[in-house]
C-alpha cells in the first residue's frame, strides 16, 4: 500500500534535486482545503496527486434522509459561489421527475438570476486567478462588481450567498420593484468594466506570457476525462448544455459560445472572460422579454415523485452539473447523486500538471476553477 504518508517518509531523505512538497490543505492558492502532493525536480513538477476529502460532509447520504424540499438548502453548499445554479439544477431535476410545469415568468426569473450568478462566479474566478498570478488589484476590482450582484440577490432572496431561492414549480417570491432597474443599471455599468479587466489582465504582456501555452489539454483527453464547462470549451469543443441540451428557456436567447483553440490556461481565461459578456447579453434579453404573470405553478402539497429515476443536467459556471435522483415514490429520494463539474475537472490535473514549474501549477489549478465545497460534497 503506497499511501502518501509512506511516500513522504520514504523520501524525506531526498535532497533538493528531487523532493516532495505538500501543497495544501492549508495553502493560499489551493482555493480551499485541497492537498496536492507535488513531486519536484528542482522547481519542475514531475508528478501531481490531488488528495481530496477534507471538506466531505456526506452530502449525498444526507440527501437520502431528507425530503425533497429539504434538500434545496443543502445544494446551496455544493458550489457556494454559484448557489443559484445548484438550486436551479436540483429543482429542474425534481420537476422533470414529477413532470411539473413552471410558469413563464418564473422561468425568466430563473434565467436572469442564474446568469447573474454565472457572472458573479466568473468574477470570483477571475479575481482569485489574478491573485494566483500575483496581481492583487484585479481581485479587489472583481469583488467590487460581485458585491453589487450580491446586493441585488439579497434584495431578491434576503441572502447573500446561500439563497435557496428556487422552488419546485416556480419561484417563491417575485422580484422586488427596484430589481429590474437595478439590474439594467448594473449591466450598463458592468460592460465597460470588462474592458478595464482587459487592460489589467488580457492585454498585460506579463499576464499573457505567464499563461499562454500552460497546461494544455487536448480534445481527446478532455473528452476521455469527461471535462465540461469552460475548460472543455477552451480545448476547442463547442459544447454548452444551454445550447446542446437546452433546459428551461435557454433556446429562446441569442448568445455565442466562446471556444478556445489549444486548451491552455490562456484559453480557459479567455473563455470565461468572454462568457461574462455573453451572460450580460442573456440577462438583457431576458429582462426585455420578461412577461408578467404567475410565478408559482401547481405543485402538490405533499411532494411524492413517482417511482423512477432521472438524470438532469445544467451548465453551471463550472461545467455540467448533473443531479441523478432515484425515487421510490416516497417523500425522500431513494438515491441522490450529484455529478459535480469541479470534481470531474480536477481529475485531469495529474495529466496536465506535470512538466510545469511550481508557479505554473498554481496557475493551472486556478484555471480549473474548483470549488472545494463541490469537489468534496
Amino acid at each position, binding site marked *: 500500500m503506497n499511501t502518501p504518508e509512506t511516500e513522504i517518509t520514504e523520501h524525506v531523505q531526498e535532497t533538493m534535486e528531487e523532493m516532495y*512538497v505538500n501543497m495544501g490543505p492549508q495553502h*493560499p492558492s489551493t482555493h480551499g482545503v485541497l492537498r496536492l502532493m507535488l513531486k519536484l525536480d528542482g522547481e519542475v513538477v514531475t508528478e501531481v496527486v490531488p488528495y481530496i476529502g477534507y471538506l466531505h460532509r456526506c452530502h449525498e447520504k444526507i440527501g437520502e434522509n431528507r425530503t425533497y424540499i429539504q434538500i434545496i438548502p443543502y445544494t446551496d453548499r455544493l458550489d457556494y459561489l454559484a448557489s443559484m445554479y445548484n438550486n436551479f439544477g436540483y429543482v429542474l431535476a425534481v420537476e422533470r421527475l414529477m413532470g411539473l410545469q413552471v410558469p413563464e415568468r418564473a422561468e425568466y426569473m430563473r434565467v436572469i438570476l442564474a446568469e447573474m450568478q454565472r457572472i458573479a462566479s466568473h468574477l470570483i474566478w477571475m479575481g482569485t486567478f489574478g491573485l494566483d498570478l500575483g496581481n492583487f*488589484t484585479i481581485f479587489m476590482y472583481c469583488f467590487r462588481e460581485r458585491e453589487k450582484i450580491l446586493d441585488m440577490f439579497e434584495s431578491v432572496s434576503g441572502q447573500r450567498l446561500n439563497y435557496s431561492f428556487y422552488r419546485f414549480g416556480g419561484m417563491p417570491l417575485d422580484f422586488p420593484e427596484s430589481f429590474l432597474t437595478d439590474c439594467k443599471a448594473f449591466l450598463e455599468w458592468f460592460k465597460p468594466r470588462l474592458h478595464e479587466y482587459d487592460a489589467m489582465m488580457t492585454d498585460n504582456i*506579463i499576464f499573457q*506570457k505567464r499563461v499562454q501555452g500552460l497546461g494544455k489539454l487536448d480534445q481527446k483527453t478532455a473528452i476521455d476525462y469527461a471535462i465540461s464547462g469552460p475548460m472543455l470549451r477552451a480545448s476547442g469543443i463547442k459544447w454548452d448544455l444551454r445550447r446542446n441540451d437546452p433546459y428551461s428557456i435557454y433556446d429562446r436567447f441569442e448568445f455565442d459560445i466562446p471556444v478556445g483553440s489549444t486548451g491552455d490556461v490562456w484559453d480557459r481565461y479567455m473563455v470565461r472572460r468572454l462568457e461574462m459578456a455573453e451572460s450580460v447579453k442573456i440577462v438583457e434579453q431576458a429582462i426585455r422579454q420578461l412577461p408578467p404573470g404567475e410565478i408559482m405553478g401547481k405543485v402538490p402539497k405533499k411532494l411524492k415523485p413517482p417511482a423512477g429515476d432521472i438524470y438532469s443536467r445544467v451548465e453551471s459556471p463550472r461545467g455540467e452539473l448533473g443531479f441523478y435522483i432515484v425515487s421510490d415514490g416516497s417523500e425522500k429520494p431513494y438515491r441522490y447523486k450529484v455529478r459535480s463539474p469541479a470534481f470531474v475537472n480536477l481529475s485531469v490535473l495529474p495529466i496536465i500538471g506535470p512538466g510545469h*514549474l511550481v*508557479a505554473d501549477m498554481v496557475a493551472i489549478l486556478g484555471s480549473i476553477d474548483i470549488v472545494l465545497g463541490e469537489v468534496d460534497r
Partner: protein
Amino acid sequence: MEKALERFYSVFAAWGVPSIVPQLTVMLVVASVIILFISVSVMFMIWWERKISAHIQVRYGPMRVGGWHGWAQSIADGIKLLIKEDIIPAGADKLVFALAPMVVFAAALAAYVIIPFGPNLIVRDLNIGVLFYISISSLTVVGIIMAGWSSNNKYSVLGALRSAAQAVSYEVPLVISVLGVIMTVGSLSMIQIVEAQQRIWFVIPQFVGFLIYLTAAIAECNRLPFDIPEAESELVAGFHVEYSGMRFAIFFLAEYANMFTVSAIATTLFLGGWHGPLLPPWLWFLIKTYFLIFVMMWLRWTLARLRVDQLMNLGWKVLLPLAFLNMGITGLVLVLLG
C-alpha cells in the same frame, strides 16, 4: 562638520580621555540616528504603501488608528509585532534562525552609510561609494538563504534558493547599468557623482541605464513583479514562512529599508541627488527618493508576477546585453568627446 568633529575630539583629548571613547561615541550616535531614520521612514513607507494600494484598488486602507487617515497604523502594527510571542520552530536550526534577520538587517543598515542626503549629510563619503553599496547588498542574500535553510521548511528553502538565483542574476545588470554613470563622472564617490549632475541629471544621457537599474533594483528588493522568492500564492511566503513577531518585523523593516536604499541610490546616480531649486537639498533628495518608491509601489499593485524562467530570461537575455550596450556606447561617446 569635520571641523566640529575635530573640536569635539580635542575637548576629550584635553581631558585626557583615550581617543577611542569620543570616536566610538560619535559612531554610536550616527548609527542610532540612522536606525531611527530607518524606523520612521519604514513606518511611513508601510503606511504609504497601504494607502497607495488601497486607492489603486478603490478602497481606503487604514483609516482609524491615529485619527487622520490612519497615520498611526504602522506604529500600532509595530507595537503588536514587538509584543508577540517569539516562536522558533522545533525543527529549526536555532542559532542560524536567530541570526538570519540580523544579517539581513545589518546589510540594509550598512548601505545607509553612503547615502548622500545633502552636501554634508552623509555618514561617510567613501571613495568606493557605489561599489560599497553593491557589495554590501549581496549580504542580504546570505541572510535570506540562512533564513530559508534554518526554518527547515521546504517552501522556505525553495524561496531561499529562488532568491539566491534571482539576486545573483540581477546583480550583474545592476552593476553594469551603473557603470555608465561612473564612467562619465570618473569617480565612485557619491558626493562627486551628485556634484557632476549640477547641469544635467544623468537620467537624460543614461536613460537606458536608469531603466535597467530600476528594473534590477526592484528585483533586488524582491518586490512584485519580481517577488518570486516570496510569491505568496506559490511559496506561501518564501523564506520567511516560519518567522513571526519581532523577527518577522526585522525582515519587513529590512525589506523596506532596502527599498529606500535602492531608490536613494537611483536618485543619487540618475536624478541629480539633492540638486533642485528653492527647497533645501535634503528635502529635494527625499522628494525624489520617495517618488521612486512610489513608482515601485505603483508597479507592484498593477502587475502580475513573473515566472522563474521568465525572470532569468529577462535578466540574462535582455537586461544584461542592454546594459553592456549602454556601457559600450557611453564609453565610445566619452572617448569621442574627449
